[in-house]
């Protein structure tokens, strides 16, 4: 079983991300981390490796610094890692990323499953996993919380708004993994040591044999959201009932109901 876990490096969730005066996104000195959603993809991949044997390859598009996110996946237990890095990729859109990832998946070769997180913290669209599946021509199994491989097929439980759907598809397939898969494991001491020594190949677009994909989606402007100064009024009273009466009045006065 060969599994590829696609990951991205993003600013930490706690980071104060904002737009500077010259229109650049900045997160100050907040750390860059593996996209938290992608940790579920790595966890799901490692679970399947444990259940079926095989290897897990972590794959990432990003600058040189994105090596650190790949090292996190290696420290969790991934066997190898590949970084796709090329300055021509600075302005790609999600479809461009999907084309590059599909080319890298093909170059790695022999994959049975490609796993993604549900979405990234930065763009947040969640469209790269299905687009990669579409470019590869493989079935897309999104929002997966449980995985069982049997023979040449995979049966998953998809966690949707309306309930849980059990879906079966032939391998190879693309999966996006959600939190129900289980808490991502912490990197072990041995894992961290192994990751620090790992050689991570860097592939350019030339190595993948493709041109830089043209972007249909273009960013026009970025801005900080309007600052809403919320001052919390703590409601007090003699009894819970008295507080409840006051709060109910205030809620109704806001005319949101």
């Amino acid at each position: 079983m060969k599994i590829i876990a696609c990951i991205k490096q993003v600013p930490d969730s706690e980071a104060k991300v904002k737009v500077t005066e010259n229109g650049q996104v900045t997160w100050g000195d907040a750390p860059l981390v593996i996209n938290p959603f992608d940790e579920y993809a790595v966890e799901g991949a490692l679970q399947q490796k444990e259940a079926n044997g095989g290897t897990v390859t972590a794959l990432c598009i990003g600058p040189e610094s994105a090596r650190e996110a790949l090292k996190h996946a290696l420290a969790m237990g991934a066997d190898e890692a590949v970084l796709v890095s090329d300055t021509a990729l600075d302005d790609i859109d999600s479809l461009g990323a999907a084309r590059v990832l599909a080319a890298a998946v093909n170059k790695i070769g022999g994959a049975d499953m490609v796993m993604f997180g549900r979405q990234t913290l930065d763009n947040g669209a969640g469209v790269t996993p299905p687009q990669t599946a579409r470019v590869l021509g493989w079935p897309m199994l999104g929002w997966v919380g449980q995985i069982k491989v049997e023979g040449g097929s995979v049966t998953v439980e998809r966690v949707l708004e309306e309930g849980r759907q059990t879906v079966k598809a032939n391998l190879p397939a693309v999966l996006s993994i959600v939190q129900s898969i289980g808490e991502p494991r912490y990197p072990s001491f041995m894992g961290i040591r192994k990751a620090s020594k790992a050689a991570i190949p860097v592939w350019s677009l030339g190595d993948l044999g493709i041109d830089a994909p043209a972007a249909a989606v273009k960013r026009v402007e970025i801005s900080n959201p309007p600052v809403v100064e919320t001052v919390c009024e703590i409601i007090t009273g003699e009894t819970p009932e008295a507080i409840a009466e006051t709060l109910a009045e205030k809620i109704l006065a806001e005319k949101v109901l």
Partner: protein
Amino acid sequence: MKTWVYIDHFKGEVQAASWEALGLGKTFGAVTAVVLGAGVDAAAQAAFEYGADEVIVVDDASLADYRAEPFASTLSALASSSTPDLILFPTTARTRELSAMCAVDLNSGVLTDVSALSVDGDKVTVTRPIYEGKVLEKAVCEARPQLITLRGRAFPKPARESGRAGALTKAEAKADVKSTVEGYSATEAAVNIGDAAVVVSGGRGVSNNPALGLDEKATAQKGFELIGELASVLGGAVGASRAAVDGGYITYAHQVGQTGKVVAPDLYIACGISGAIQHLVGMRNAKLIVAINKDAEAPIFTQARYGVVGDLFVFVPALTAALRKRLGK
């Protein structure tokens, strides 16, 4: 501008945000609604009643269970022959996939979770949140059709005009089945916190009531019963923090926040939720936020307009009673 609106539904139940998309489409001129599925006559009729001038229906057994591939291939085939300038979708787990795949088929781009947009001729500029809403992005799609998914409750829902009719066009499904649906369990009966006007959520605090003499999960169940009663009086849905979901108190479908759902209801009541940043990014766009927590220092109070420092097991029933009285329920 030739505008299509994709009507997203689950087994014929249409997401309210589909009608919001239809209402927005109408502001640009005539609108064609697209309904794919099996046995979707009622959804097609509803599309007329919410304002569609034309409805394209593909009613086919192969579309009985939603799967991304046959839905994407069918919609892409329709769009390549009719060349709309714009296809609007409500934002759901299904439409993120569907619009994304159509963008591949049609060699175009997709813009998701759009909260505002402006139109110049047939060019749409959207505003969408990035970095979990910490930054707003304005973006355009230079290819056609422009595929845009709209954030739920960001645009007004049009009034329904009963009996309204229009031109119904039937079209063929395009076979592209790559998976089989083996089962479906509705144990988490239709939780759609994204569409709810009111969300009442519980956090770790729902398991904290030693006086009940119950174990953690049984205590939490009692807590969520109280929260459910308050939600019911307000006609709202029950949400939860990640701590409550991880504790096994309630299912993942209820989770509000970074790894759950982003909601923007008119009223959000947080009960026993401390307010980790991962939760706040999921609810801070609610119009009115009320927080109930034992800990006066809990970060949730920094986002709330009104706060009550107290025990949710005592206060939530009191608030339910006070609101029930005022709302005449």
